[in-house]
């Protein structure tokens, strides 16, 4: 995504971003770091033993990855990939077969030395409407990416 020039205001919606979680996706995520052994993410028996769950769960870091995508799409990669943050708390498990919808809303802006800091609240819900994660994120948008003041 290229350069976005836009203004930001409290209440601006962010997203949504929808992800369908499969065991294959979880396996790819775990395998991308060379983690090939059974774990609570990839193996039902390991999940039962470690977590006491009936099946595997997705790593919370997958949800962080999705939240990063949500905000990168909003701010643009040239801004977000250099100044972006995400901070998520994991409320309920994300399991294979779930459809997770990430949404956000701008909660405020503040002037920083290197641009405008835009703060966003983030929520993730599964297909039943249960909240799986909540948190916040931000990006510092350089003045060059903001509409010029009259």
């Amino acid at each position, binding site marked *: 995504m290229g350069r976005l020039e836009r203004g930001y205001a409290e209440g601006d919606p962010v997203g949504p971003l929808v992800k369908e979680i499969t065991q294959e996706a979880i396996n790819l995520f775990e395998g991308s770091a060379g983690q090939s052994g059974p774990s609570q993410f990839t193996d039902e028996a390991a999940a039962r033993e470690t977590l*006491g769950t009936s099946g595997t769960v997705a790593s919370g870091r997958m949800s962080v990855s999705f939240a990063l995508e949500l905000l990168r799409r909003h701010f643009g990669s040239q801004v977000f990939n250099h*100044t972006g*943050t995400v901070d998520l708390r994991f409320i309920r498990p994300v399991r294979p077969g779930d459809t997770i919808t990430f949404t956000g809303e701008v909660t405020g802006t503040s002037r920083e030395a290197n641009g405008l800091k835009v703060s966003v609240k983030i929520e993730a819900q599964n297909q039943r409407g249960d909240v799986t994660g909540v948190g916040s994120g931000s990006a510092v948008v350089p003045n060059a990416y903001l509409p010029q003041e009259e």
Partner: protein
Amino acid sequence: MTETDNRIPLDWDALEVGETFEKFEYTLTQRMIDEYRRGVMDPEAAFPTISHKVDVRQYNARYTDSGSVNARCAFHCYNSPVPGKKLTVTAWIADKYLRRGKNYIVTEAVSVDEDGRLIDRVITHELKQPSEVGKKWGG
């Protein structure tokens, strides 16, 4: 041949905030990036480093415990990693706390590439009684 496990059983009370682990180095390959992007279904995903769990890797190399569940994770983006570049990770124990009778450990890590570019920072809160969440989640 049997490998010897020289890891130390975790003593949460004795664990010191500020303990810094040995630096960890790895090279991020294009294949790792491609697999990560397929896993998160995002062809523009710029920080595949998150799947490497580098903040807890060195903790897990030093300590053995009954497992963990990620309760909270923060990620700061500075510069996208470049495939083929070696990354050096510095990780440490950033905090620990007791909440509702459960023990948490907070690890933090910063990654820098071989050209000195700051890549990212990750901070993770891990619950150290993972079987508790299975009960809470209803299996």
